[in-house]
């Protein structure tokens, strides 16, 4: 059927089948494969219903992707998907529906080599960030981001771009702004609201050029893996390295606040810009 006829319902997790959840950067991979399996089961019932109406064998039926089912080699012997589903529901007493689950067997560790496959669908990223660090105030400003991502096939390229742009913002926020313990490990100093829990605003973002490399994953749904957490993660080490490159201060605790940068500069006896490469 045409994609315009596809309606995605947001099911209630209280009443639907059990799902372990969307985490570990695998929502697209696992859910996508489960949806394909469910669609195949529903399609098989629909073809059985169509076969009964056309008085043929289901194996002889093909679909044209435009909402029609016909006998292989005989396009005139056809029925629409809507008619087939109507017949299933109201004449034949069948439910045109499907279920799906996608489970990857637990990967055992090879006792000799230690080899295992803990994940199967992580995206990969490279990210370069240009920043300015003020060695008097410790403030850092992101000037430019350039990134490249490998995430299988981009199933919906506009949504992938949206996720990467938004994720980079969140990465910046984790790198330099957000914390529940801003100064000292005392809950009393923790932020209570958005006036104290800081995040970059629309004026703090930088131009971001993104390249998406599509290398379809063999076991992904139509080759897709999805960006997952990789949309945010590479920003953090990139910013930490950029701060070191700019003023020679190694900060190993997030977020990288002006206070930490200034303390580092003071400990070093001044800013020590590293050589460019």
């Amino acid at each position: 059927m045409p994609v315009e006829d596809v309606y995605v319902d947001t099911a209630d997790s209280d009443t639907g089948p059990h799902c372990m959840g969307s985490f570990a950067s695998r929502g697209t991979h696992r859910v996508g494969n489960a949806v394909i399996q469910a669609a195949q089961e529903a399609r098989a019932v629909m073809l059985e219903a169509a076969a009964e109406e056309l008085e043929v064998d289901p194996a002889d039926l093909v679909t044209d992707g435009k909402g029609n089912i016909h006998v292989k080699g005989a396009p005139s012997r056809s029925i629409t998907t809507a008619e087939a589903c109507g017949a299933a529901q109201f004449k034949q007493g069948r439910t045109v529906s499907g279920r799906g689950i996608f489970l990857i067997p637990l990967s055992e560790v090879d006792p000799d080599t230690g080899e295992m496959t803990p994940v199967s669908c992580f995206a990969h990223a490279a990210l370069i960030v240009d920043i300015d660090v003020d060695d008097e105030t410790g403030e850092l400003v992101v000037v430019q981001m350039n990134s490249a991502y490998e995430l299988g096939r981009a199933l919906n390229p506009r949504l992938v771009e949206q996720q990467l742009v938004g994720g980079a913002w969140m990465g910046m926020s984790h790198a330099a702004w957000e914390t529940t313990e801003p100064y000292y490990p005392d809950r009393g100093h923790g932020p209570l609201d958005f006036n104290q829990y800081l995040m970059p605003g629309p004026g703090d973002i930088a131009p971001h050029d993104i390249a998406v490399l599509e290398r379809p994953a063999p076991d992904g749904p139509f080759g897709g893996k999805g960006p997952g957490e990789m949309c945010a993660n590479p920003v953090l080490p990139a910013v930490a390295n950029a701060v070191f490159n700019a003023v020679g201060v190694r900060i190993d605790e997030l977020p990288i606040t002006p206070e930490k940068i200034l303390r580092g500069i003071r400990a070093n006896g001044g800013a020590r810009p590293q050589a460019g490469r």
Partner: protein
Amino acid sequence: MAKKPLHFRLNGAEKAVFVDEGQNLLDVLRRGVGDLTPKYGCGQGACGTCTVLVDGEPHLSCLTLAEAVEGRRITTTGGLAQGNQLHPLQTAFMENFAAQCGYCTPGMLMAAKALLDRNPSPTRQEVVEAISGNICRCTGYEPIINAILEAAKSRGARQYG
């Protein structure tokens, strides 16, 4: 506590409702007259998702005393589309993928409408300032800024509502 009668215009329609003393405008809009388009976010004026227009000016409805809008003109996201015709800002938000989870969107739209109503051709910096009181957790702001700039540009071709 005695309830007080309150009259105002909501998206062009007369509304009359009884409110509690001290009740805020957001609560009256959502529970009093059933307009669920302005969202409750932080409840203390820090996130901007409850933004509505009062006589064309953006106000944080969670911090606005309902009694203060007696006789005034309220515009919410619910009043942007005309029938099936989306407002140019809504179209631009859609085309620029400016909504992800969508929770900040009503506030962003109202902040943007207030800006474009008084400044039809804003610079990027003016757009940034106009939405700087609105928090977005998903988009990284860039698509929202682009959508508002595009809506401003399309105003020349179409009548902007």
